[in-house]
């Protein structure tokens, strides 16, 4: 019987305490951030959309290798000596034309693992977080600065360069071969030993 009245009392009392607390909170200023009108400041280390400073990128592919989800695709073309991509801001010499630098932001897991290994600190996570899209393909970011013509040009240049090099090599080889031939005539027995040497390891 005592329990009966105690229950009644407890119920009413604890309800009143609860009501007091909620009432108190009516007068506590609200914590809401009025988002589109007031944008909260981002902490300085915020990890949001990736940005690549292509001026500095040397196309070393470190970031793509560090990425756990493989959402960075980098394709490069070697630069020809006459047509250098220039220097990075730290004064490093670039040796590659980056023809393709796609980050599929839709896949990215914002882990920032790609940021640390970059030798030139050109890939970074920015504070931009508002980048919703209506189309999924718009979320594939293309950072490469070269347009397709240029890419074709560079590719061609490199091909030409390669071809020239090849040709030069070939020529050199030929010259060598001729020289060797001349030598061979002298030392015909030694010929067999040359072959395994030239094989790549």
């Amino acid at each position, binding site marked *: 019987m005592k329990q009966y009245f105690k*229950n009644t009392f*407890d*119920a009413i*009392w*604890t*309800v009143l*305490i*609860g009501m007091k*607390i*909620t009432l108190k*909170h009516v007068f506590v200023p609200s*914590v809401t951030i009025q988002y589109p009108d007031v944008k909260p400041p981002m*902490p*300085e*280390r*915020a*990890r949001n959309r990736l940005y690549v400073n292509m001026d500095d990128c040397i196309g070393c592919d470190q970031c793509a290798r*560090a*990425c*756990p989800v493989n959402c960075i695709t980098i394709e490069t073309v070697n630069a020809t000596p006459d047509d250098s991509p220039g220097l990075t801001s730290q004064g490093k010499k670039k040796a590659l034309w980056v023809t393709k630098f796609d980050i599929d932001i839709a896949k990215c*897991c*914002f*882990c*920032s*693992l790609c940021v*640390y290994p970059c030798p030139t600190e050109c890939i970074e*996570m920015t504070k931009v977080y508002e980048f919703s899209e209506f189309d999924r393909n718009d979320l594939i970011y293309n950072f490469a600065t070269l347009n397709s013509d240029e890419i074709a040009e560079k590719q061609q240049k490199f091909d030409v360069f390669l071809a020239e090099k090849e040709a030069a090599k070939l020529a050199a080889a030929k010259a060598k071969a001729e020289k060797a031939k001349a030598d061979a005539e002298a030392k015909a027995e030694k010929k067999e030993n040359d072959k395994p040497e030239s094989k790549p390891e």
Partner: protein
Amino acid sequence: MALKTEEMVLNMGPQHPSTHGVLRLELELEGELVKNVIPHIGYLHRCFEKHCEAMTYPQIVPYTDRMDYLASMSNNLGYAIAIERLMGIEVPERVEYIRVIMAELQRIASHLVALGTYGVDIGAFTPFLFLFAEREKILTIFEETSGARLLYNYIWVGGLAQDIHPDFVRKTKEFVEFFKPKIKELNDLLSYNKIFIERTANIGILPADVAINYGITGPNLRASGVKWDLRKDDPYSIYDRFDFDIPVGEGLVGTVGDSWDRYYLKVLEMEQSLRIIEQAIDQIPEGDVHEAVPKRIKPPKGTIYTRVENPKGELGYFIISDGSLNPFRVKVRGPSFVNMEVFGELCKGHFVADIIAILGSIDIVLGEVDR
């Protein structure tokens, strides 16, 4: 009772407001009474263990974040410790202190979500929002240091991703002060509410011996009255330096090991975490957090099993290394998954409404159950 009531099979989930994610419960009902519960899992199977085999060691860290996504830091910590032990890395003092503070903050954050959603399950929506607002404070601290709000990828093998933010110490202290009265408010608003007690006391009683045999760990085990906490019983990191208690369930309003105990234990644990943080925050030594981070993580051949006390229980990593850059096998003992096991037994004979109360008190995260 009554009439051979036909059994009714009722689905709860996968889309259901209170299954804490995508769990599907198949309830066999007799009237309102639950005869049997069959949990169906696998709606969130994200192939974590398989993934690990294709990743290098540092690349796995972001994936551990995503297991128990409410306690990323603790997951990171367990993994980092495992690899460090495998490779024999000594981490600097500073790192250890920061790790402990982070892990304890994370424990509070995780418990806040657990308590808040439990309130929602029981029907009280307001505590949920209060607790989330407080959790937001922790997230701000985390975000300032690591840059992310939820999945931090902060604790690395051998060190940390970044040093703490200069404001970190001040903000953490502020938070500790701010948070203490909030616990009391929570108790007044929810824990001691008569209706809440009526709903949760004596519901889903889990006796100690059953809990032990089912391999239940964490708050659920302690609520049953077993004083078992890896931070004390198998100390890792530097937990042995701190002075804190391990609360156990006492059956304050019902029986030891009931849902209310499991709920209240989390409240008590938050207080203990605050104590640890208070002690640790003043002692952080100077140092470099990257000092011990190896350039290339390539552990020697061998296996290791390490366990840490996650907010939800004992999180174990079993790692087989074949000496290459990728682990041969990573097996995870997820506390949620193991704790989940006893759920079916607990539910028998309860009402539909109690199922929710029990499930919420066990506090599972589907990301970890299914992995």
